[in-house]
């Protein structure tokens, strides 16, 4: 029997955008990169780890279908298709103007839960631990609550065996192996390992695949069902005033020595 895995993947502003290229619209409460810097969006890094986790299960078990799911107001298809080029089977995009710049996780989780229900059967949902834009780390937990299934967050290894998901995770100094009955939600972190590069064969296959696109109406979601629970009052780039004292010397070694003397003078060592 085919194991159905859904991986959620969010299109985000590249988190490697240099600090100087961040632009904030304080009225609209939105963050963008400076258009002149021409920085392309990316799939949230932790979500790429999620795609990788799903594909590793597919490599091991063979009879696995991986569906990538995303929600947003607009998508850059070349960016999103990377998840297919890596080897995923299908893609479902919930695309609706009402999903513009959503920072309230309750809304995103409700939309994704409705999409999961419309997709139909699923055995495992894999998500990144958090999205690198709003850093909320709440959608996967909410998704598990809304779907009434177990959730294992922050894992670094995900295996499926006998209708169980078995995960490794490390929090602090504790190393754990946790299992849950399927269906379940699992979140992965960067420790899972580097996502694979798309192979030429998969890139060609992905080029022929058309994502399924649904609106909120297709999911039967009304505006009232998506009422926000949080309100952003302000959004800004914090000002930093450098007060760094640069320590120098005759050469680099001398600067190192002077740094030690300075720290002693300041009673720090």
């Amino acid at each position, binding site marked *: 029997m085919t194991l159905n895995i859904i991986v959620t993947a969010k299109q985000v502003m590249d988190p490697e955008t240099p600090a100087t290229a*961040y632009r904030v619209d304080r009225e609209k409460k939105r963050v963008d990169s400076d258009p002149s810097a021409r920085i392309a969006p990316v799939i949230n890094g932790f979500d790429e780890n999620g795609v990788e986790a799903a594909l590793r299960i597919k490599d091991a078990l063979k009879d696995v279908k991986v569906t990538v799911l995303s929600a947003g107001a607009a998508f850059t298809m070349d960016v999103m298709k990377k998840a297919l080029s890596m080897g995923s089977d299908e893609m479902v995009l919930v695309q609706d103007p009402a999903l513009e710049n959503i920072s309230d996780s309750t809304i995103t989780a409700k939309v994704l839960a409705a999409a999961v229900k419309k997709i139909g059967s699923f055995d495992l949902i894999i998500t990144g631990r958090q999205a690198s834009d709003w850093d909320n*780390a709440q959608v996967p937990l909410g998704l*598990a609550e809304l779907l009434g299934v177990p959730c294992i967050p*922050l894992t670094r290894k995900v295996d499926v065996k006998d209708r169980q998901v078995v995960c490794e995770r490390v929090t602090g100094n504790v190393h754990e192996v946790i299992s849950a009955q399927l269906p379940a939600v699992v979140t992965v972190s960067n*420790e899972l390992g580097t996502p694979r590069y798309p192979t030429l064969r998969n890139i060609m296959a992905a080029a022929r695949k058309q994502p399924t696109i649904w609106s909120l109406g297709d999911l039967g979601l009304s505006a009232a069902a998506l009422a*926000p629970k949080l309100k952003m009052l302000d959004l800004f780039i914090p000002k930093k005033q450098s007060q760094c004292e640069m320590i120098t010397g005759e050469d680099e070694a001398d600067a190192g020595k002077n740094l030690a003397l300075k720290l002693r003078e300041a009673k720090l060592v």
Partner: protein
Amino acid sequence: MADRQGVLVIGEVANGKLNPSSTEMLAHGRKLADSLKEPLSIALLGQDLGAAPKEAIAFGADKVHAVTDPLLKEYQVDAYLAAITKVAQQHTPRVVLLAKGPIGSEVGPRLAFRLDTAVIQDCLEVRIDAEKKLVGNRPVYGGNCMATITSLGEPMMAIVRPKTGDPLARNDSRHGEVVAFSPRLEASVIKSRVVERVEKAQEGVRLEDAAIVVSGGRGLGSAAPFTNEIKDLADLLGAAIGASRAVVDSGWISHDHQVGLTGKTIAPNLYIMVGISGASQHMAGCSAAKVIVAINRDSDAVIFNDARYGVAGDWKKVLPAFIQQIRAMK
């Protein structure tokens, strides 16, 4: 709608003692409760809470919900959630606070969904505004931006980052009430199982508690300095060793050394950073460091905006001389 009142902290207890982050949450909660002129309570969960309820009162709680059940012996998210949900439904707090960490970050959002409200994640600061609304300030976009967020749901909830405030001075003569709460949990609520659990012995100083931290980043060029120069310096200063996400991802050092948004939050008196550029997501884990010292080859590195003292130079030349001088002064 229930008449909501008071601030409820979801506390954490380990070995019959209150977790340090819970004492910090009590200080945040005390401030909110005082602005609301309403009581501060804390829910403590376990099979045996030991001295923790008394400690919680000494650190500022007016009331302790002592939630005990055999299924709460070890932390298990489904059992904790079921118990906390019952406490929150029965006592209808206006505000719920949790500490960011393995427990709060997992329980907080799920509790919010269960109560049909939302939680403000990762706050550095929380306050009550003139309309008695909870307002939180939090970093977003990897710490590159800050957002001020208010709660529209009930109860209003926040997850607060540890080390963003000091606990109140312990006062064992403070008065407070301890109320036993039995959630009568059924084993069927538990949906995930810990198959294996290994606690790695702490080597040297715990990163989160260290007064001095020495960290290395990609600029070190390889894993070797973590067992040589960085380790020598840390040993000399009695410091803990930290690392940037980049070097953890490269496998140069284990994840438990990672400082930052997706690693540990530290608050040392002195933070020495070698070969770390100072990306926002790293700085998100050390914003409470009192004095930052940066050694970086790139004189334009953003870390020099956050550092108090800096050396622009090759660590291979700077660090040995620095270590030698520190040793000479001992």
